[in-house]
């Protein structure tokens, strides 16, 4: 039987970026526990030596030629944006800085 604690539910909610309201966390705890207990039955099955199946199709990845197509026009790019500024999407300040300097951070992990 999988035991899920409220703390784990809260960690999952943080990791999933989901704010849970009121008794949502407690309700979720019970539901997750029930589903995971059921799912745990799968552990009884011996799958040693079985190759994982990741794709239902058996062919290799097709490749696209490096041919340029036009960008979406900027109006279409921003048309659905809840908040925008000029040609940009707007988000709250990413790294709270005390000195208010302009800087670039982030990048690819």
């Amino acid at each position, binding site marked *: 039987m999988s035991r899920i604690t409220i703390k*784990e*539910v809260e960690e*999952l*909610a*943080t*990791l*999933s*970026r*989901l*704010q*849970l*309201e009121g008794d*949502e966390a407690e309700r*979720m705890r019970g*539901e*997750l526990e*029930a*589903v*995971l207990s*059921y*799912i745990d*039955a*799968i*552990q009884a*099955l011996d*799958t040693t030596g*079985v*190759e*994982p*199946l*990741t*794709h*239902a*199709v058996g*062919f290799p*990845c*097709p490749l*696209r030629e490096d041919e340029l197509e036009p960008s*979406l026009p900027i109006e*279409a790019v921003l*048309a*659905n*944006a*809840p*908040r925008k500024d000029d040609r940009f*999407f707007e*988000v*709250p*300040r*990413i790294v*709270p800085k005390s000195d208010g300097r302009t800087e670039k951070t982030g990048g690819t992990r």
Partner: protein
Amino acid sequence: MSSRVESLVASGHVAEIATAVRGGQVRAREVVECYLDRIAKHDGTLGCYLRVDADGARRRGDGVDAALASGATVGPLAGVPIGIKDIFCTEGIETTCASKILKGFIPPYESTVTARLSAAGAIGLGKLNMDEFAMGSSNENSAFGPVRNPWDPARVPGGSSGGSAAAVAAGLCAASLGTDTGGSIRQPAALCGVTGVKATYGRVSRWGVIAFASSLDHPGPFGRTIRDAAWMLSAIAGYDPNDSTSIAAPVGNYVQACAGGVSGLRVGVPEEYFSVGLEPEIESAVRAAVETIRQAGATVVPVSLPHTRYAVAAYYLISTAEAASNLARYDGIRYGHRATNVGSLEELYARTRGEGFGSEPKRRIMLGTYVLRSGYYDAYYGKAQRVRRLITNDFQAAFADCDVIATPTSPISAFKIGEKISDPLALYLADVYTVGPSLAGLPALSQPCGFSSAGLPIGWQLIAPPLGEETLFRVGGAYEAATSWHQRRPRALFGTEVVA
């Protein structure tokens, strides 16, 4: 409205409507108006449509009529009004996946499948209700209200393509589009008494179909009859370079296959699919259907799918992991709902997603995050993929002895709205017969095969080997030729119980 149009719409056959429009017996615009009337009259109760594009449909109807008047050639589905599950991106038309988080989202691009239907001349009437992000099997998870079963409005239509199944059953469109991840076409088809087809994974493009679980998502059609479904699938199937999992093989002649007969076909019946929890009336209806096909010339053989009991667990592990990933993009930055008055980026994410997603997507995101956490991968996601291989191998082995497998589609018939909403696990377990073919990516359909004593439709499921769609249509066609379940109509909506 001419009675000719009304009777056409009552029978609702795709090919008949297309032929009548092409032959000039009716105008496409008249057909559109007739469906719009029906929607106006009945959909307030049923809740099939999230959005009716009446002006667009009229315009497209007039377009078909004008093309015909000018002698231009039109597509095979010219003038056929269809409904589109709100999971398909439609350029310029709001597409929400029945979620608050996508409210107001207007795609700047069109899904391959809807583009192909338009090219074939079909006329989109609007966007159909569904379980939010296709998560559910009762359509109670829509952020915009439930869909009601046309056979009994107190009951669910099934899900997640509940609006698509109910709209066809209620005659609010001639045919429709849905998606099937773990049974979301087949199960509502069974519960609403229509035919629904999920083709081989990769046979129908996923480009423009909002992802739930990418390795399991299958777009597909609903129709009143096997031929309607065949016409629809013919229009949407085939290679699409926009989907890297799209199969390049030529598309079969599904319509012709409906008349192909079953002589020489071996129908496999897996005992694992007639197990505890199966309603006795469903079991006897499905067994009777198998007998009908045997009498039509097929042979019946017992087969075994021994890993069936692990299928639901494997399905929920894989589908929730993929869903948690696919739903990570809903962050309120580029489109959709965005929480207001947020002080930080973290708050923007947590509140946007907390407010925007309903409880079922939240549950599945949490579950999917749980099973992918570091240290859990091998025990959960990795394990599920190995089980997925075993389930696929089961089917492969069974198909050494048979050409098609026949099973019930759902162990239960349509239940009351609200009856099972507090027990998610019980509903997950009801997917037991549909998730196997989903995991294996096999073509499968559900077809009406009877009614319960409560007057609720029963469906049987046919499963074929990869790219064996034509076999499905052969069996389905032979079954329709021998029975009349597909002619039954909800009396309240048609004023009659049988339409020839």
